[in-house]
């Protein structure tokens, strides 16, 4: 639980946000919980020939077909051991997207006070998808703007 600072900061508590966090290549990322429909373990994937490299395949999600996106490939990160895979499922209009991640972290409440602008050290590639960074005692959580990611994917093809 956050420490309550002075009165001025009372308002900021209201602005606490909840994030689903997960690890890709040992880095911690987060997505606003509102955007996340569910989190599921790895499911068998059907590859789509001739699709962009960040499309890992298609997954059967209780009768709905979800497009699995590899954020690792989208962000151009180094290959890491993909021993455990989890899916973070988000919905955009009539499409379902599953972001394939290494492992899931906790759901975190993060407050404005911990918020910082994304550092310049992040590569161009990722920067356009990031909405900010939160500093906690233990780690740095990089927040991904899901809308930007999906729009970018859909637009690339247009």
């Amino acid at each position, binding site marked *: 639980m956050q420490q309550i600072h002075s009165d001025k900061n009372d308002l900021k508590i209201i602005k606490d946000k909840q994030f689903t966090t997960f690890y890709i290549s040992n880095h911690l990322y987060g997505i606003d919980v509102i955007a996340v429909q569910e989190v599921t373990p790895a499911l068998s994937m*059907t590859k789509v020939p001739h699709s962009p490299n960040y499309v890992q395949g298609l997954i*059967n999600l209780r009768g709905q077909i979800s497009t699995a996106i590899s954020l690792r490939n989208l962000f151009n990160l180094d290959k890491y051991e993909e021993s455990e895979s989890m899916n973070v499922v988000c919905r955009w209009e009539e499409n379902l997207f599953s972001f394939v991640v290494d492992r899931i972290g906790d759901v975190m409440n993060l407050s404005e006070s911990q918020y910082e602008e994304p550092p310049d050290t992040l590569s161009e590639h990722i920067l356009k998808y990031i909405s900010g960074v939160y500093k906690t005692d233990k780690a740095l959580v990089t927040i991904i703007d899901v809308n930007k990611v999906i729009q970018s994917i859909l637009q690339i*093809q247009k």
Partner: protein
Amino acid sequence: MSKNNTFKSVPIEEFISESDEILQRVQDLLHSIENKGYSKSVVDELYRNLHTLKGTSQLFGFTQMGLLSHSLEASMEPLRQYEAPISKNLVDVFYKAVNLLEDISKSLKHNETDLSFKDLVNELIPEIIEAAGQQFSANYKLNRDELNPIFHEKELNYSTVNEKQSTRLGNNSDAIAEINYKSKDDVGKKEASTIKLSMNEIKIKDNEIINQELIVKDNSNANISNNSLHDATIRVQVQLLDQIMNLVGELVLVRNGILQYKNKDESLEYANLAHSIDEVSTKLQFQVMKTRMQPVGTVVNKFQRLVRETATELNKKIDLTLIGSETEIDKTLLEAIKDPLTHIIRNSCDHGIESPEDRIKSGKPENGHILIRSYHEGGQVVIEVSDDGKGMDRAKILAKGIEKGLINQEIAGRLSEREILNLIFAPGFSTAQKITNVSGRGVGMDVVKTNIEKIGGTVVLMSTLGKGTTIKLVIPLTLAILQSLIVKSSEDRFAIPQLRLVELVRFDMSVENDLGKVQMLQGRPMLKLRGDLLPLIGLNEVLTNATFKPASDGVLNIVVVNSDGENFGLVVDEIMETSDIVVKPLANFLKNESIFSGATLLGDGTVSLILDVQEIAEKFHIKPSGDRAKASVLDSHLLNQKIVNSDAQDFFIFKINSKSIGAVPLCLVHRLEEFPVNKIEVSGEQKMVRYRNILMPLIDLASELKLGSSDLSSSEKVSIFVMEKSNRYYGIIVNEILDVLFIESAIDEAIRDRFGILGNIIYKEQIFTVIDAISIVNKFLNKTNQVSGILISDTKNIEADKAKKTKILVAEDVSFFRRQIGKILENEGFEVLMAEDGEKAIGLLNSDHKREIKLLLSDIEMPNKNGLELAREVKRNEKLSKLKLIALTTKNKEADVKEGYAAGFDDYLEKLNSDKLLQAIKKQLDIIRD
């Protein structure tokens, strides 16, 4: 007015949609009267519809609509009693009124009242009265005064239903209120309709709106408001049906899963249950599909008006006939074809049907005719739009194609019938001389084609110049559930829609097959199946871009599919089962230009991709079988848009021996043949074979080229290509027949290390050795001549002495042909001068002061002055008047030939047919001598 729009909206929406239906019916009825004349039942129905419209619009407070319908209704009154033909004037005014009513109805979607139309309505009503008055006074000799009662007697009687009264009717929301409409109607019967509404709706409608007490009673069996409880139909939101369809789809998937387990489970009871659920869900699926089905007529009937208006606009006379409009199709698909059909009809009216004068001139009936025929065929809905107009002018289309930069002159000459017509579907094409209001611009046939293909359908175009055009739309019955075939490529499974499926063929490559055989053509394996050539595409090839080479001893599982009317074979690793699958859309970005049209879940839950047969055909350039040879030309040019070296041509590709691959211009090849080795006979050392009742000598190419001799002992068959010279045949033995390819690159003469080789040619990174077949045959002839002195002597076409000293100038930019032609001529004893282009040719002619050059053999396509320009210049030059000109080229279309003769050529020949060439030369030279 009411501030709360939401409460208002649902009943009003229903009113609007009912009114639209009524208005459509009114139009259909009008049309029927217009064409078939008076009919009491039609008139009655028309009256009833107008009556209902009047009543309901007034109930909802749409006064203008009410007044207008009232007016129309009134003018129909006398017709109900007296039969009479209806004047055009009245019909026109009626249509006008209907249009206005439709406009009002449309505006009511956004506006609360129709008062904005007051002026228009006030203008129109007198017109209606006038027209009706004329009609009836003309027919019945009623005077104006007698007519007036018709129009003024009916008055709306208003009284207010105030709060008190409504409460009097009861607070119970279920109470029905009778709303009465009084009519002071002396002429004709007393008409009235009862409109029942539930109490709630009345209250909701705001006191102000219901300031009319309308009491309407009906004597006749007229339809009460369509919303009534008596109808056997019920309105359902389309969205709800969509959801039901989805659920049924899910059910189908689960059923598939259950059926899968049925095979594993031994229990009889389980099997029975599985069977039952299968039956029930199949029936359910079928019924739900039917709920979404609507008759094509819903859209097609509306075209009567479109045609009528368009014809009037264009001053043409056009009749529209509809056949099979009861054919049913899924509602969403119907929506999707509405615009394309509209465009097609407009085109027919605008560009197809000629003006009445033109039609009479060509002996056609004055009235143009459009026919829309709808029917079911093979699980699809077919809608044909045919007109008896002027048809499509190929020449105009080609001209337009060139003008728009879609093709150039060269390609235009090579296009097939179908390809020419299909140019219409290319983006950026429009043959309108001027853009008329009617067909518009930018909406083009390419949009029509795209829209139809988007829903999984196809468009076929057929046309006869002068007679008419038919456009055929073929559309699947429904999109949601697809019958398909599941196939495997490596370990992955894919679905192929049954709609595209033609047949399944299992082909054993190793066995001698009567069924057919696999050959290469244009770099692609073809299966000769029952006389037709079927291109084969490997599914693996499609998925991974690996090249597909059928193993010579394997078994091919071929799924023959159809795309755009053309069949091709998809070769898969395994053919599995047929299955009803539910189509799930792919994310948009995966769908564009993808070979996958969607995805589905198989019985065991795996996601499987659905193959888009059309996309695959396009990717692999599958063209109509008659034009396969032309296919690569069109593609490469549409892609590159560059001017072709017109001397590029087909080459016959073969193996000389196990190592080298040879090429020979196809025009030199008479036929390709194969003989069993035991048919070869030997005379001395000369091999020969019986061919068409004569003995044909066989020339071993490999040994002629000193590349070892063909070892015939190990093979069972001998492959040869046959050359013809002076009506005799010579067979050249090759190691293996490979392919026929169209190659544009020039022959590289750098490496010619021995007799019989002209050079090398490159094709897609492969190098072929071009064989000098003519020389080889000539050498053979000379050898035999020398040996026998008598036997196979070639009767020279032209006597040696005559030929001596006759100079012939050859103008040709491709050195290969220059050399070939030169050889042929020199063989006959001519003296040959060479020029690489028109300029040089002129130069040589000008410096020939003794006029020794008697004949000019010229190519057409040359740089620095082409053949035509050369010919014209020669003809202009008096000093060269005696010079004979022969054109020698690959451009042989009628238009080209005509052009050649017009430019001044005395003869026009195809390249490299030596006999014809020599004959033509002889003819020209003899003319000189004589």
